């Protein structure tokens, strides 16, 4: 199913190369990300943090189908290289189709979009490698010339050769984006996710094992001590703050911080995520 979807999306994208009046856009970003709890561990002694260099690129092609309706097809590549836990090094790609409808003329008109992305991420530890699909429904409205509000829903589905790593999740989120100055933007967000998570801990953990599927000893975080992976359904509340600074006509700097708490009684763990990146769009 995913292969078929991916094929259709890829074919549409290739065909679009030959169509006139396409509106090309190339986007790329690179930077660093830090995760204070990459292992999603609840005990301080088990927590493994790490930072990664990331580089993503997207080429997109858009068509204005009518005054209000826009179709976008895009292909992307994304990568992560972790400083210590290189089993999680990733390279992946995907294709995306998006329909956006704007309720009226001009940049202040409310909009809604439906988006589907199908991709494949290859991990150095291939047990993690997966086909993934996400479907997003998102809307936005300009509250004032300097303030916008966005609401969204996303369903994500990952399928791996080892079904222990098959993960699904539903996320709803809200964001407020403000232009602080002509160059600085601030975004504040909140999201709630309910779905599968994998938490790592040094066994024995009968308390978590009783509520989860257990994978013994994946060597992601080393072998001494050996961690177990526990897959369970978690509820994650995340608050985020992002800052963007326009450096030049096509380039901006972006900084982000997220604080996430994931729970499934008795398990509870926290992540602090920090990101700094340089973004380019033409």
């Amino acid at each position, binding site marked *: 199913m995913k292969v078929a979807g991916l094929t259709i999306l890829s074919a549409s994208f290739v065909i679009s190369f030959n169509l006139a009046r396409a*509106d090309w856009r190339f986007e790329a970003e690179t930077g660093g990300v830090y995760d204070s709890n990459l292992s999603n561990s609840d005990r301080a002694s088990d927590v493994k943090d790490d930072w990664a260099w990331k580089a993503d690129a997207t080429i997109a092609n858009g068509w204005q189908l009518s*005054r209000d309706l826009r179709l976008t097809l895009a292909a992307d590549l994304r990568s992560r290289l972790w400083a210590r836990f290189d089993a999680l090094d990733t390279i992946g790609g995907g294709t995306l189709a998006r329909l956006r409808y*704007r309720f009226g003329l001009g940049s202040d008109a409310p909009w809604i979009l439906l988006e589907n992305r199908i991709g494949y991420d290859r991990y150095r530890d291939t047990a993690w490698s997966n086909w993934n699909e996400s479907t997003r429904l998102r809307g936005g409205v300009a509250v004032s010339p*300097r303030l916008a509000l966005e609401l969204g829903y996303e369903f994500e589905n990952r399928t791996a050769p080892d079904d222990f790593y098959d993960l699904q999740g539903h996320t709803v989120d809200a964001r407020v984006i403000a232009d602080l100055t*002509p160059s600085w*933007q601030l975004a504040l967000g909140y999201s709630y996710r309910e779905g599968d998570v994998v938490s790592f801990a040094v066994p024995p953990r009968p308390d978590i094992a009783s509520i989860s599927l257990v994978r013994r000893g994946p060597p992601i975080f080393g072998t001494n001590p050996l961690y177990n992976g526990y897959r369970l359904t978690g509820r994650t509340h995340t608050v985020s703050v992002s800052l963007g600074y326009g450096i030049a006509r*096509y380039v901006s700097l972006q900084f982000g911080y997220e604080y996430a708490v994931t729970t499934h009684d008795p398990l509870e763990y926290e992540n602090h995520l920090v990101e700094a990146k340089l*973004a380019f769009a033409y």
Partner: protein
Amino acid sequence: MKRLCAVVLVAVFSLSRELHSGSIEATVRDRTGAPVSDAVVYAIGNGARPAPAKRQAIIDQQNKQFVPYVTAIQMGTAVMFPNKDNIRHHVYSFSPAKRFELPLYTGVPAEPVVFDKVGFVTLGCNIHDWMIAYVAVLPTPYFQVTGKEGRAALKNVPAAQYTIEVWHPLLKGAPENLAQKVDLAAGTKQLVFTLDLKPNFRAKRAPGLSNGGYP
């Protein structure tokens, strides 16, 4: 003999026109003293208003930008909006002085847009939100847009009393607040205008924290 008389008459007429016209050189700065480009300097005669112009102007769309950013025209001018990109644009204005829409098109629209009311018009593109331009529709044929050095020169302005005003897309307040009265005779009047400008919050082309579904 008749031809000689005609030549002399034309020469005298031209000379007298030269003697009865002057120039206005304006320097436009912001509060920090920096030169202000894209400011429209215009002279409104204190007598009868001139008839609407039968002129044409052009505002291009190139590389997903309007060119020029600011255009000054006399009321009645017809403006063409050729699209020099190989993609479609959708030009619109909500401004009271001229509401119009040029739905999705490439190339040159069949008809120009006639700006028949005095005022300041903001243009946008419905596809590329960062595409913004301005048209100053003026009740006078005497105007110029400042360049990078913040200077404008209005030449061959007939001798009379004028009110000189300056407008800029980011101007705080009305242009009338900056008005300077000039009694223009032969020669050049030098004027300096200092503008209070608002921060420029126009949509950016650089990637932001939200792309609003574009591309």
